[in-house]
């Protein structure tokens, strides 16, 4: 499996990353991407930027462990996870997940699994910079619920898809 995991401060080119993953393979029938973008507002109020703090030593190994788990659950041919940290302006990409497989259900399921994981368990923290000052983003219970659905045995997930 082609696996790329990167944590970086710099912006990156989503199209180039997809090409890098899938471009040289003729057994890939399905590629799913998720791109998370910094919105210009948070809870209805305009924001100037997001700042992402992360636990550098832990984040990369934790993400790698979950990519391995995705690979064990679904027949994947490639996975790319790129997560930025530092200051990110509205409209900029925060996170990219790319999953490639022979078949679409595996690619969709693995991308959702990895995003649910990144939202709830990867050691990153978002701070919003707005007119009123800086504030840490609160964790959402909807994200926890989304992550919960993967704790059932993998067989169930396969059957449902």
């Amino acid at each position: 499996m082609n696996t790329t995991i990167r944590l970086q401060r710099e912006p990156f080119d989503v199209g180039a990353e997809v090409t890098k993953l899938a471009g040289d393979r003729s057994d890939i029938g399905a590629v799913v991407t998720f791109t998370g973008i910094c919105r210009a507002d948070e809870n209805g109020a305009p924001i100037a930027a997001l700042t992402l703090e992360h636990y550098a030593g832990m984040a990369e190994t934790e993400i790698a462990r979950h990519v391995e788990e995705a690979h064990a659950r679904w027949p994947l041919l490639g996975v790319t996870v790129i997560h930025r940290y530092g200051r990110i302006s509205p409209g900029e990409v925060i996170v990219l997940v790319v999953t490639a497989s022979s078949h679409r259900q595996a690619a969709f399921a693995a991308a959702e699994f990895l995003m649910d994981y990144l939202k709830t368990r990867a050691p990153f923290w978002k701070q919003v910079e707005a007119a009123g000052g800086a504030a840490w983003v609160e964790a959402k219970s909807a994200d926890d619920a989304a992550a919960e659905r993967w704790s059932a045995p993998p067989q169930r997930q396969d059957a449902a898809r």
Partner: protein
Amino acid sequence: MSLRVLYFAWVRERIGKAEEEIEPPAGVATVGQLVAWLAGRGESYAYAFENAKVIRAAIDRTHVRADAKIEGAGEIAFFPPMTGG
């Protein structure tokens, strides 16, 4: 026992530092007990850990629960619920 402790996000901001070396007394055996002990170290610590239930912890870069033993730990991190992705 000497331990390296890391703090992130608003836990870090409230305590006022990103990391430190600590020497908890022998009676402190679990992550939960360490949180209680840290909370007693002063006003900034008390503020950081005022709602101990929301604080997450990792030992040697793996998520752990409050009842995890700290014996043998090299690095313990405390942080709020994660908001990545």
